[in-house]
């Protein structure tokens, strides 16, 4: 079994800095490493194939959830216009997909709603990772492959 490295914390964190890496929770606290690998592959491949920047947020969203998701989207990359944020809040049972202006031209709201529908049907049966991976696959299939994008 893969385990995170056990290292002594030579703690240099101060009030101004973030917590040291070793002080953060276990890497596989939320998802197992196998699930993380699936998420990683889905995010990376859909981003490379489409040229859009897909990010995934899993956690509590402030209400109204849409506003918080849009704030997150604004910080989600160097070019928020071309990025797509999938924000899943399992506690509130809400998933929000936010597309920037450039991404929305290739991912119309209808396509997002379809992907969200397939995600929620997986989520309601308890399969978080499977739903996210399938939703990413649908979104990237819909967005397609832009001409002139070199993926390799």
């Amino acid at each position, binding site marked *: 079994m893969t385990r995170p490295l056990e290292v002594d914390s030579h703690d240099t964190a101060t009030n101004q800095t973030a917590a040291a890496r070793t002080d953060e929770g276990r890497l596989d606290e939320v998802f197992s490493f196998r699930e993380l690998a699936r998420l990683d592959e889905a995010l990376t491949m*859909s981003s*490379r194939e489409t040229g859009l920047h897909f990010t995934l947020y899993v956690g509590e969203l402030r209400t109204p959830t849409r506003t918080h998701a849009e704030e997150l989207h604004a910080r989600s990359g160097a*070019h928020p216009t071309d990025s797509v944020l999938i924000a899943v809040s399992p506690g509130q049972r809400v998933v929000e997909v936010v597309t920037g202006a450039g991404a929305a031209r290739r991912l119309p709201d209808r396509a997002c709603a379809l992907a969200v529908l397939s995600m929620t049907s997986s989520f309601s049966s308890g399969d978080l990772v499977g739903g996210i991976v399938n939703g990413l696959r649908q979104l990237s299939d819909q967005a397609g492959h832009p001409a002139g994008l070199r993926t390799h």
Partner: protein
Amino acid sequence: MGAGTGKLSGVNVAETILVFAAIPLAIVVVLALLTLKPGADRRPRYKPGQAWDHAPVWYEPHPAHAGGHGPVAAHGPAAVPGSGTAALGSSMYPEQPGERALDSGTGAGPAVGDGHVHGGATAARAIQPAGPLGGARGTW
């Protein structure tokens, strides 16, 4: 059975307990261990409606030009296309309240690399308007 002795030998209490209590108990314990052991380190499965008390996590894809050859020290804000940064993506970065501050450019190098997930390397960025936003919402 002896050669026609016709005499039954009695069992004492200790043998009775051993046969009728200890052996079934041992079997039950072995089966219980076999049943419970594989799931001992498994995380509880998410069920709809249960509370979610984990810290927020934000994952991002590997940047296209990083190659993905293990942890590399990051310079400057990660994942800026064309800037030659080598920060590895797939970042798990639990949201730190202090990192909501503006563009600090602290690329914390990955400290833990296990082959699947590399440590986060992206700092918060300045908020940029992204034009009219689209998307969808779902509940379950």
